[in-house]
């Protein structure tokens, strides 16, 4: 019981610290600005398809929002975690903290909990704002079903960002300086979300000379990437040749029920929910065995 109250206090402190930190506030504002700007454009596009074709292409609007949220949500995770441990060690406050009757696992669990709550609140606010603006500009009435799906999408994004939080807490435990930890995380984010699949495809294509087999082998690799699993649950599987979605088009495809969606994508969902926790356990272990010197 005492342990839980310790964790709660540290989580509270971490949460309050983040809310006052200029770094976190400026990154959250930038994130919200980026997805808001793209949502406005997507809203105009949906309105245009409604006027010209007569039927709204709302899926396209949501796909645009998913694309930009998926690309930039990791930043929130990274910013919250990159100096979680290294900052305390550098300022020697970790030593002071550890002289109190509190265990190391309490500290790191509290930090994870505080940062996790922070991610959830930022995403809840900004994703709702972005989808809301997109729907308002497009002029399409919102149904309860869509709102439920948007909230589930917020949860999916939360677990995706949690993966990056876990990675950044781990690097902040290992690295000696905060700026190295931030730089490493940003490079990791760029490689994972943009470069790696293209790099593997190109190397494969150069070696085999056959684009179909290169495509298939890249697909095998892609299954391990959180980025791919997240977009699959959100907008469905896209055919590599035609670019069309086969089967259920993700969480926003209102032709199917949520049960059908969960049944179709359960392996992806399981991956998305489990992976962050494995990495978080990794960072807890790394912190427990760490020698704190400064």
């Amino acid at each position, binding site marked *: 019981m005492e342990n839980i109250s310790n964790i709660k206090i540290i989580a509270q402190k971490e949460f309050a610290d983040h809310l006052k930190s200029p*770094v976190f506030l*400026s*990154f959250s504002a*930038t994130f919200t*600005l*980026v997805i808001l*700007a*793209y949502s*406005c*454009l997507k809203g*105009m*596009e949906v*309105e*245009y398809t409604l006027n010209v074709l007569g039927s709204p292409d709302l899926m396209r609007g949501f796909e*645009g929002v998913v*694309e*930009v949220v998926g690309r*930039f949500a990791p*930043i929130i995770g990274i910013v919250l975690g990159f*100096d979680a441990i290294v900052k305390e060690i550098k300022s020697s406050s970790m030593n002071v903290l550890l002289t109190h009757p509190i265990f190391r696992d309490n500290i790191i669990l509290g930090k994870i909990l505080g940062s996790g709550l922070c991610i959830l609140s930022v995403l809840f606010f900004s994703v709702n704002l972005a989808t809301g603006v997109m729907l308002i500009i497009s002029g399409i009435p919102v149904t309860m079903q869509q709102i439920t799906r948007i909230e589930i999408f917020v949860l999916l994004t939360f677990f995706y960002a949690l993966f990056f939080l876990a990675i950044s807490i781990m690097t902040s435990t290992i690295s000696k*300086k*905060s*700026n*190295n930890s*931030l*730089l490493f995380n*940003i*490079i990791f984010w*760029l*490689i994972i979300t*943009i*470069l790696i699949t*293209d*790099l593997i*495809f*190109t190397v494969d*294509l*150069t070696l085999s000379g056959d684009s179909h087999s290169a495509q298939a082998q890249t697909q095998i690799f892609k299954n391990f990437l959180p980025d791919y699993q997240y977009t699959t649950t959100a907008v469905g599987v896209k055919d590599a040749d035609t670019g069309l979605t086969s089967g259920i088009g993700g969480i926003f495809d209102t032709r199917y029920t949520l049960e059908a969606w969960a049944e179709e994508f359960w392996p992806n969902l399981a991956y998305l929910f489990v992976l962050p926790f494995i990495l978080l356990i990794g960072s807890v272990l790394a912190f427990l065995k760490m020698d704190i010197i400064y």
Partner: protein
Amino acid sequence: MNKNCVLALAQKEFSDKLYEPSFFVLVAIFMGTIFVYLQSKGGGENFKQVVQVIGVFFPLTGIALGYDGIIKEKNSKSLNVLLTHPVFRDNIITGKFLGISMALALVVFLSLILIAASDFIISGKVAELDSLLRLLIFGIFTFLYLLVFTAFGLFASIWCKTEIESLTLGVLVWINICVALGPIIMTLASLASGQSLFDMTKEYASTTAAIYNISPLHHFAEVTIGYLDLSLCAFNVPTDVYGFMDTKYSISYLIGYYWQNAIILLILPFLFLAASYISFLRDDI
């Protein structure tokens, strides 16, 4: 005397950068990207992707090279030791700027030469002087564009109190300029002209083109491939001239056509350098 100081500092900075592990990571990523997008599909669309990745994501390499230039010395107290020697503050900035620019030039030109050479060898194409010259011009513009962000990083390293603040400021500016600015300009133009993007009116296009002038990415996109913007779902109007890589036009004609964009790309890094001078000369260390 002054020249010697600057050169000695530039040498030191350059060799320091070469020993940093992060420098090798940056070179590897730069080369990897150019390799990926030049080899994968072939055709003109391909080159646009290379330029897009360089334009949108590579300013981060510039910032990573510059963000700790002065602040690192200040925090490790080596700046105080340096200033006890007969060297002026402006020498330090110039030396640092030169050293970092050399490191950046090495990254850009080494990767371009290696990738272009391997492409020529593998494909068996015959390299003409004209196409090599255009490739060189592309390299110079890429270097100047990235130098804008490096100079900004250097400025941030003087202005901020800690390394983390400086890096954060750099990353924020990068995201806002290279990612958010494009769609914001499109929305602003829509508000200013009262037309929607999809109405495809001339008025909207001219308003957007006018506002785009504030973005360095726009000038880089113009000189390299003749586009208005390179960010995700960017707005573009078809033109006759597609940048310096457009072999339909001679280089002298293209210089006349794009001189404004080229001048802006040339001036911007020195603007930040001037800001760095002012802020460093007045700084209380």
